[in-house]
């Protein structure tokens, strides 16, 4: 693996290897040393959480970072070509970690520079480190990625995170429940892909009645702005807010995940149940990113 640009590039074997390395890093069996290694974090679009997660991952391995954030301070605005900006940054650093609203930006960067590039999100397209940390959270809590029953709830139409997760889990004979308002359903092209891979899925419109047989419930936020009429949002939102009483009949091994930030789609009364897993999930993101950087820099 030379770069991490898209989940589409990864085989099942590569994903499992990454899970294995992530686990060993978490357990302290592998201690990568990034001393004198410098990661350039190029965030052409703000995303504090993802940036902090990468920054933490690098610093936990004794590495260092340089950060370019927002579009304001980049030379992109002064008319320097994107390729020139990248080539210059590549002279200073050992790895480029990049987020951009432009789709395909990280792929292009990987063609321009000869140091490794990690895609930290390119518009609505890919965010592979999020998908991998989700997979790691699933394997860590369930002991396997095979034959699980996974519910994806919330905005399934515009949510890049749930798209990547659905596509990645399809490699592991998963059974899906898609839970969303009718106009925020999983896009047809993803359902077509799943059908051609013979993956079972069912679609529902409320959380409460459809979570009792799940191993993982992955909740995402429904943005008010998606609704033409704010009243529709108020009417509907109750069906997609997870509350503690709904969890009375769920499986013991159920874990509730969320890519964060949460607004009100998971009631805080869920936080101190054994099912809540969204904060450990964020921590897993650091281990996953440590593993990715270590593998790309040839340290493991």
């Amino acid at each position, binding site marked *: 693996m030379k770069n991490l640009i*898209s989940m*589409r590039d990864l085989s099942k074997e590569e994903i499992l290897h990454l899970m294995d390395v992530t686990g060993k890093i978490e357990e302290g069996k592998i201690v990568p040393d990034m001393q004198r290694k410098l990661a350039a974090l190029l965030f052409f679009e703000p995303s504090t959480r993802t940036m902090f997660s990468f920054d933490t991952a690098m610093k936990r391995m004794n590495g260092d970072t340089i950060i370019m954030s927002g579009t304001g301070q980049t030379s992109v605005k002064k008319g320097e*070509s*994107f*390729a020139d900006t990248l080539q210059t940054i590549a002279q200073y650093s050992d790895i480029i970690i990049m987020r951009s*609203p*432009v*789709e*395909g*930006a990280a*792929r*292009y960067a990987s063609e321009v520079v000869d140091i490794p590039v990690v895609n930290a999100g*390119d*518009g*609505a*397209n*890919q965010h592979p480190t999020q998908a991998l940390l989700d997979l790691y959270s699933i394997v860590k809590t369930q002991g396997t990625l095979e034959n699980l029953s996974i519910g994806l709830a919330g905005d399934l139409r515009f949510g890049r995170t749930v798209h990547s997760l659905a596509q990645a889990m399809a490699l592991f004979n998963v059974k899906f429940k898609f839970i969303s308002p009718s106009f925020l359903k999983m896009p047809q*092209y993803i359902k077509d892909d799943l059908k051609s891979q013979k993956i079972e899925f069912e679609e529902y419109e409320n959380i409460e009645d459809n979570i009792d047989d799940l191993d993982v419930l992955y909740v995402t936020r429904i943005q008010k702005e998606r609704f033409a009429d704010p009243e529709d949002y108020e009417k509907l939102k109750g069906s997609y807010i997870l509350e503690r009483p709904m969890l009375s009949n769920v499986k013991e091994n159920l874990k509730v995940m969320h890519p964060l930030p949460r607004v009100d789609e998971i009631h805080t009364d869920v936080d101190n149940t054994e099912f809540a897993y969204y904060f450990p999930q964020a921590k897993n993101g650091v281990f996953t990113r440590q593993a990715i950087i270590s593998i790309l820099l040839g340290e493991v």
Partner: protein
Amino acid sequence: MSQIKQIKVNAIKNGTVIDHITAGKVRKVLDILELDGTEIVMVGMNLSSKKLNRKDIVKIENKELSRNEVNSIALVAPNATLIIIKDFEVEKKVSLEIPENIENLIVCPNPKCITNSEDIKSKFRLTKDEPVKVRCFYCEKKYLIDEVKIKK
């Protein structure tokens, strides 16, 4: 019979015939061809065809197609046959095939795609979908060939 055929498809001495163009696609083929306006071009539309039922056809005197032209025509008329004529004889006959990797022939319809904001060559790959689609190498979006614009 032969008289009728003569009228429909006039023979050319030297040049290129693009036969078995999907009926209705000949305008797109003409758009792709780099013509300087002096060539003699004959166009047939909706001719009956054993292979396609109805087909379009183009004949161009004294022109050989570039590789780019051939690849682009394959995209809009995947069943087409290319016939090179020398001295009224068929010198070469090739069935067109869409290349697996399509470089710099298509404009990506996704406005957020990097190929539309940076000066870089587009790259598309054929997918295994039926009917066939192309996927942008950069933004990863998939499109039917009828949905994309062919570069000139």
